[in-house]
């Protein structure tokens, strides 16, 4: 059974090549048409959306995975603040209309929106906010990202519409972390063990139905406290296979297809029935070195491998993307173009290897989850060969990768998509599977967290981004691009970072 699926996918790929639907995708960004006035919209409409990864459970408190954030954040659950993905992830109000910070940076005061309530009708007050944050900072917290809130000392509610968060030390990451799932406001007393089937959020949608293995339906909460969504229902269809997803979109079974394989976009090119939206992602395809193990303990080897890989070749094989040169995507304020560090130079790579004691090259093994296109590994094999490195590709199931590479650090080279936004912290944990341990980087990161101003924080994180690239902590093959195909007559579709959150509040359908 485990052998059948890869075989099936290969066959699909073969058929696609045979049909000639592959090829260079059309460049350019389609702009969405402006949403028409409400009287021209079908507010009773159901929108069908193709997503890829189904959540394993709906318990967003205790289960990891972006698949949960993608459908539940903003739509079903809300935090004090959220982000605007159309404005470079700017932090914007959600349940808090405004907030201020004390001059010493240790006290955050949030003013709650009026009239907010949970799906069960009960009012959302500061007591719920306090309780929710206390669940995050409790010593035995089962929350997935509880470590994000380690700087919180106390949370109090001076009155029903105000929340005060006192910190042990400055934390310039606090607001961002509150925009993520750790900031969700639950109703006081929520039993997280039963959260899977009993969501009670404050967002514009409720979970209406979950057909495990195929779809999740969200329905508009008719009693929502804020501006009502413009559609009655949204059905998320989980279709892993790219070709099946394309067919579903082409035949009208879905209205919105997210995460389209860029090499298959030509099926929609020049078709007036569809718009193709190109958006940003935080998908950093990271080639990790086992930094605690020879030969990667020698920086020259790491630099040689980075210089041997032509990122443009990888991007072409993937079908779209951007070379970034470090772990920071352009939408982060501390981004800078670092593609000049270890730029493509196979001759120098060969020389570096020779100086490092490998004049005749070396043989390495790449452990890669089989979910990624084999074309990427193929490019790595041929690129590295130019520099004298023989690369053996070992595709494994993602779960095997988690155990072997992530937990046991049993690998030489690994390729995985680090999809989480703002995850520079991974480069500050010596025990992380990269095995990258640099005191300076750890200090800068800690200082950035303590920074008094955003400018100060951004400058420090910029240094971190540069340093990890100069140290060749890992290599960054490409930053993914989000391709979304939208049926004509559907408006307000999220375009950026759609695999992290898919805010439905603006989606609308023409009558």
């Amino acid at each position: 059974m485990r052998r059948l699926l890869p075989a099936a996918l290969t066959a699909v790929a073969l058929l696609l090549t045979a049909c000639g639907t592959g090829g260079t995708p059309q460049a350019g960004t389609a702009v969405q048409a402006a949403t028409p006035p409400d009287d021209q919209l079908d507010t009773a409409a159901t929108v069908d959306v193709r997503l890829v990864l189904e959540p394993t459970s709906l318990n967003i408190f205790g289960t990891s995975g972006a698949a949960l954030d993608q459908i539940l954040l903003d739509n079903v659950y809300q935090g004090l603040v959220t982000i605007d993905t159309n404005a470079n992830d700017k932090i914007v109000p959600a349940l808090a209309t405004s907030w201020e910070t004390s001059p010493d940076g240790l006290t955050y005061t949030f003013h709650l929106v009026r009239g907010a309530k949970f799906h069960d009708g009960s009012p959302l007050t500061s007591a719920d906010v306090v309780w929710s944050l206390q669940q995050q900072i409790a010593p035995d917290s089962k929350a997935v990202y509880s470590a994000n809130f380690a700087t919180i000392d106390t949370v109090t509610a001076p009155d029903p519409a105000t929340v005060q968060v006192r910190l042990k030390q400055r934390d310039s990451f606090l607001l961002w972390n509150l925009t993520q799932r750790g900031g969700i406001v639950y109703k006081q007393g929520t039993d997280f063990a039963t959260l899977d089937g009993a969501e009670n959020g404050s967002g514009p949608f409720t979970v209406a139905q979950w057909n495990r293995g195929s779809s999740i339906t969200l329905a508009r909460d008719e009693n929502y406290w804020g501006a009502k969504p413009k559609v009655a229902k949204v059905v998320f269809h989980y279709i892993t296979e790219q070709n099946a997803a394309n067919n579903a979109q082409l035949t009208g079974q879905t209205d919105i297809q997210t995460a389209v394989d860029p090499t298959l976009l030509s099926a929609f090119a020049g078709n007036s029935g569809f718009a193709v939206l190109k958006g940003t992602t935080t998908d950093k395809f990271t080639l990790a070195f086992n930094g605690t193990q020879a030969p990667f303990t020698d920086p020259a080897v790491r630099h040689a491998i980075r210089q041997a890989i032509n990122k443009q070749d990888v991007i072409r094989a993937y079908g779209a993307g951007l070379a970034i040169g470090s772990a920071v995507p352009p939408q982060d304020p501390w981004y800078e173009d670092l593609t000049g560090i270890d730029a493509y130079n196979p001759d120098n790579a060969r020389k570096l290897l020779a100086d490092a004691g490998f004049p005749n090259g070396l043989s390495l093994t790449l452990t890669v989850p089989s979910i990624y296109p084999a074309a990427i590994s193929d490019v790595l094999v041929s690129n590295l060969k130019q520099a004298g490195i023989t690369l053996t590709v070992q595709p494994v199931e993602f779960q095997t990768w988690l155990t072997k590479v992530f937990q046991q650090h049993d690998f030489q080279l690994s390729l995985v998509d680090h999809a989480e936004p703002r995850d520079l912290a991974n480069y500050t944990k010596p025990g992380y599977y990269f095995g990258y341990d640099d005191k300076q980087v750890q200090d800068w990161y800690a200082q950035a967290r303590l920074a008094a101003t955003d400018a100060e924080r951004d400058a420090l994180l910029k240094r971190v981004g540069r340093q990890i690239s100069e140290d060749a902590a890992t290599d960054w093959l490409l930053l993914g691009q989000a391709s979304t195909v939208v049926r004509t007559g559907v408006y307000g579709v999220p375009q950026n970072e759609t695999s992290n959150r898919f805010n439905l509040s603006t989606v609308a359908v023409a009558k």
Partner: protein
Amino acid sequence: MTLFVLRRAGLLVVSLLVASLLVFVLLRLLPGDVAATIGGIQASPEQLAAIRAGLGLDRSLAVQYGDWLTGVLRGDFGRSQLNGTSVSAELAAKLEVTAPLIAGAIAVAVAVAVPLGTWAAVRHRGWAGGGISALAQIGIAVPALWLALVLVLVFSVTLGWLPAQGFPVDGWAEPGAALESLVLPWIALGLTEGAVLLRFVRSAVLGVLHSDYLRTARAKGLTRTRALLRHGFRNAAVPVVSVLGLQLATLVVGTIVIERVFTLPGVGSMLVTDVGNRDLVKVQGEVFAVVAAVMLIGFAVDLVHRIVDPRLQEAR
């Protein structure tokens, strides 16, 4: 007959026990566990250990197996470690898709194989018989997956007659839509299975055609067709029923591929997902249920044999 049934039933029970142990042990050979699925790539080793302990994964394998088996004996196939859903309840829900899928595929297979196979046997010297045999040979060579993709390309994408994938959100509450979404999977699975069956039907009928009793029947004045219908089919049915029973097992595997291609929320898709998530308590319940079903069908096929062909009873 009673002795035969008892002996077979005893064998069935022993086989089921062995199967339960095999399923349990083989799944434990997979790297990774459900705790990693829950924790993901942000969890620290301490968090993972806590999740593991919470799920009882730190207990010995013997204890875990004993727990599970006593549950199964009481009819409780366990619960998902990821989200607490009951295995039996979800299996029942998925069977609403998979059972009709398999039944329809068998119907298509039989509808194709019996008349064409018989015809190919009767005309085995002519071009029609040869042509049908050649087609069947091609049918066996073509993977169900490829056929499925071609069917989608023609009937969904180009002609727009049938849905390309999926099952109605409300399932059989929309019977028309549910049937529509099963038509292409039925054909894809049924034709490939039918091609295999056709060859068995052909050779079974051929064997019957040259038998003495059919010659006798014709000597008594029956036409070939009437002799075949009255005396031949019952005899030809014995090996064909066995093959159908065996094919049911391969059909279960075939549904995994077909359900993935058409994204049908059936048992096959569920198994692939659960194995991927290492939700092993759920997987072992599901696999064991499927294995038990196949074994029970084998048991039933044996009994049917005895009834269809009384000679087997006298032999013992």
